[in-house]
């Protein structure tokens, strides 16, 4: 019996093997493999964060080893960065937010915060900041948080906390060339013109001025006796910091004066009308080391130095304000915003991570410059970079309390930056956002007309006298009054609310 049973069993075995192997062959090789075993349980929590640009090789290695080793020890998190190239950044970030992918933290510019908040992508941060953000509140001025406070709640962390007053109202100059023609500094419009003419006499290949579509407020510091600040990027309206009144800039005498200066500059060739409109050619000049000056941005002398030095190793840059004794105004203390998505799995860890960055100078240098001795060295209180690879972007977290200049930047430039805000005031329009929704049709038309008719006047390539009346008429036809009216209404409401809040605080 046993033997017979054995025979049956062997028979079955043959059958089963034949069947299964036949099936396997029929299914093909794809059926095999697959099914990777789930990894062993990690003790630490993974924090997923979006970063713009491309990840450098050293950054990847740094995160995998040194950074995550520390973060695991100190916060018990594992940082996982998803880099999205700059060109796709906006669309991909919005896609990730709208589809609710579970990222815990991401960066973007100031102007996106109110939009994302309105769409419900963001998580309010007040309580998180209070519980986990001591280092953030200690190192970022309280005012900086105000710009991301909407409906009484905080929606983003203004990660950069540095000097920012008078941004885009300074002029960045090739200091080495300035000195080469016997000048020391720029204080007036006449200085600029003199610099150009002297340089031109030495070498006609040098080119004067870059941002023809910007920088009118650089001139205001000299041309206006009232301190004015632009209200909008399009340079149509301004506010008088002294009185708090709105200014219809285009119809003011100041605009005419600015236009005449620009006309003069075109006349002497400081603005090359043949290049006007050819943006890439403009940048070419700077990259080629042929640009004498352009609009500054507080830290541009530091940020652009490497580019210029590639073309001319002896190049030096410095930023100047015309009439430096006049006060500067802070419109936006920080353009950088770190936000926590509504769908974040670990919002408290995201806050702890941000807090960790600003917890000490050592943390700050570690995440921005890497490992001391390996990626950078400190020489005379400056950072000597030992690698060209980017770590955490310095500009994202630049902080006045921890900032250290790199060795290639001149001390004077650093001093300028550090003391930029010394006589600064908070702008009247700080926290004001114009909502064009009620007049959006008129606003679109006004913008189109402005770009077509007023940009050439701004540039100085057409005569103010000849072109302005017709242009202004066209603008009015497009509904300029309505936009101006709506702007005044919203601004009045903003000021009233501000006054009420001030009264309340006074009462307390």
């Amino acid at each position, binding site marked *: 019996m046993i033997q*017979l049973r054995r025979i049956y069993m*062997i028979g079955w075995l043959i059958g089963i093997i034949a069947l299964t192997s*036949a099936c396997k062959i029929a299914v*093909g090789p794809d059926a095999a493999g697959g099914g990777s075993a789930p990894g062993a349980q990690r003790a630490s929590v993974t924090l997923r964060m979006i970063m713009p640009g491309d990840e450098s090789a050293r950054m990847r290695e740094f995160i995998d080893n040194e950074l995550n080793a520390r973060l695991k020890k100190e916060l018990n998190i594992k940082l996982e960065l998803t880099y999205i190239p700059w060109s796709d950044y906006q669309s991909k970030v919005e896609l990730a937010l709208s589809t609710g992918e579970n990222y815990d933290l991401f960066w973007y510019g100031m102007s996106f915060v109110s939009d994302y908040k309105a769409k419900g992508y963001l998580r309010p941060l007040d309580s998180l900041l209070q519980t986990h953000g001591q280092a953030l509140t200690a190192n970022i001025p309280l005012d900086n948080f105000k710009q991301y406070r909407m409906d009484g709640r905080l929606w983003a962390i203004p990660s950069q906390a540095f000097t920012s007053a008078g941004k885009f109202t300074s002029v960045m100059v090739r200091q080495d060339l300035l000195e080469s023609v016997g000048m020391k500094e720029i204080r007036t419009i006449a200085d600029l013109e003199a610099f150009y003419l002297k340089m031109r006499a030495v070498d006609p290949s040098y080119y004067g001025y870059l941002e023809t579509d910007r920088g009118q407020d650089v001139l205001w510091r000299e041309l206006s006796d009232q301190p004015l600040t632009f209200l909008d990027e399009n340079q149509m309206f301004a506010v008088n910091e002294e009185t708090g009144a709105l200014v219809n800039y285009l119809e003011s005498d100041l605009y005419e004066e600015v236009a005449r200066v620009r006309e003069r500059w075109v006349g002497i060739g400081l603005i090359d009308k043949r290049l006007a409109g050819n*943006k*890439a050619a403009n940048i070419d000049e700077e*990259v080629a080391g042929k640009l004498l000056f352009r609009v500054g941005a507080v830290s541009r002398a530091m940020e652009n130095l490497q580019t210029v030095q590639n073309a001319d190793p002896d190049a030096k840059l410095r930023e100047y304000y015309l009439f430096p004794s006049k006060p500067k105004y802070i419109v936006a203390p920080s353009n950088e915003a770190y936000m926590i998505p509504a769908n974040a799995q670990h919002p408290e860890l995201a806050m702890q991570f941000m807090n960790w960055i600003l917890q000490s100078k050592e943390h700050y240098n570690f995440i921005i410059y890497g490992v001391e001795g390996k990626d950078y060295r400190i020489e005379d209180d400056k950072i000597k970079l030992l690698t060209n690879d980017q770590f955490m972007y310095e500009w994202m977290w630049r902080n006045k309390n921890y900032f250290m200049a790199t060795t290639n930047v001149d001390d004077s430039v650093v001093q300028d930056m550090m003391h930029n805000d010394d006589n600064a005031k908070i702008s009247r329009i700080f926290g004001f956002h114009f909502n064009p929704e009620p007049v959006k049709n008129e606003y679109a038309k006004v913008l189109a007309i402005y770009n077509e008719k007023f940009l*050439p006047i701004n540039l100085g390539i057409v005569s103010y006298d000849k072109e302005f009346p017709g242009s202004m008429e066209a603008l009015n036809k497009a509904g300029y009054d309505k936009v101006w009216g709506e702007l005044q209404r919203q601004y009045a409401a903003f000021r009233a609310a501000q006054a009420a809040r001030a009264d309340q605080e006074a009462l307390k």
Partner: protein
Amino acid sequence: MKSSIFTNMVLALLLLLTPIITLYAYSNYTSSRVLTREIVKAKRTQIQTFVGQLGQMFAQYDSYQKMLYESTEVRNLAYPDLLSDDLLHYRTLKTVSEEINRLTGYGRWKGIIAVVYPKTGMVIKSNSSLGAVPAALPDKDGFWSYRTNPKGEAYFIETISNPAKNDKDEESDLTVVAKVDEGEIKSDLSEMKSNGLEDPFLYKPGDNPIYNYTANQALIQEMLPELDPRGTEGTFDPLLIRTSGGTYQVHMDMVQSLGWYLVDYVPIDTIMAPIKRNQMMFYSISGMMLFMACILCFLLYRSVRIPFRKLMQGMNFIEKGIYTSRMKDPPKGEFRYVYQKFNSMAARIEELIEDVLKEQIRTKEANVKQLQSQINPHFLYNTLAYIKSMVELGEKEAAVSMTMNLSRYYRYTTKLSSSFATVQEELNLVENYLDIHRMLTDDFEYEIDIDPAMLTMEIPRLTLQPLVENVIVHAFRKPVKYGTVRIRGVLEGAGIARLSVDDNGAGIEAAQLESLQAKIRSAPSDRIDSGLQNVHQRLMLLFGKSSGLFLGPSEWGGLRAELIWQVLDDEPQ
């Protein structure tokens, strides 16, 4: 024995295995072929897709270039006199600049588009880096050509000029340039690599290949001499190239707009791995099946074929009459049972055959005894003397009667045809016998009282007569009184028939009776001493152990001899 069960089963196994293995082999062959074809096809499709992508990129820049070439604004900028007004110049320049930026700003490719005005020295371009547009443009217009700048950076460039430029010395009014840096192609190749290609590179005979960033350049260099796409006329079958590092299947396809070939190679071992695995599996499973089949045959042989053959031998012995043959060493399983049954069957046959033989011997012995007693001279002398006296006395009747009785008696006892007789026939014989003796001596009488149902029953011939003879010879030898013989036949309920012979003679003592009884029972197998013994043995052989001859005292004072037998069921009552 040609088609024994064993051979049949082995045949069945072969018949079963052959189609399975054949089908299996066929399926394996088919799947391997399909797999190979699909893998090659998939690779081809992949290459074609990527070639299409590359081609599309260049085609896109082609079309951008044409658009700009045909644009009025672009042309007007070539003639400063047309745009004497600063505002018009500014607007035209701005439009063209924005247009160029728009064209290159979309899509994922980072080529460069530029319009160069050689006469005014103006360049409008989409990329602001310094070397974006080479200082020296190609000598004449043309589609994509591969060039290298003084710094050693390579790029593809195509130009179209107005008026058309056909010679180095000619100076056009404007030239629209489209340029794709080698770096762009390299990162594209790297992306292809990460998207499934093995190690793609671009190749054109006569030029250095363009590798992806992580290419195995040494290996590719080794392959290059074998790569000659010329003469293939558009059909790019995969090539097999042997290098020091192994054999590779090389796929290539031409990017039409460039005239370069996108090449990718796959180590043949990798591509064929699933097929190899399949075949290995096929061989091992086939081998295993055959091996299993052999084991099955062997087991069948051992546990069916051998016991069966032994059984056949046993049967042969029985057939030949060797009834003592028995199966030894019974195997396990069902055959053990068959062996046991065979053995008990053989034993039973042997037993039965012995019984029949013995009975035949007994019958013959009975006849012989009977004949011996019949030709007893005294008996014959007495009867013949009786007949003579009766004839002399003129007792004709008595003489005739005696003669008749004698003649019936002898006819019956000498008849040897059958060994069985009915009770009636036996009784007739006994009557003849008793009548003869009564006529001779006239000193006894007899009574017969038989259940009529018994008359037709068959019993062995000459079983009753010895009992009666015993009475005449022994009980009435010394007649003290008038003797009586009573013959009675009774059927009992349990199918037991009793036929008794009683006499009123002197009888015998109990001890003697017992020894007589024992003598009858313990009959030796081959020799029969007395008639009574013979009767007992025959009854017992025929009707079973409970049947036989039983002696006991009679109620009339003499001896009772009783035949008892079990009435067989099939016998008619």
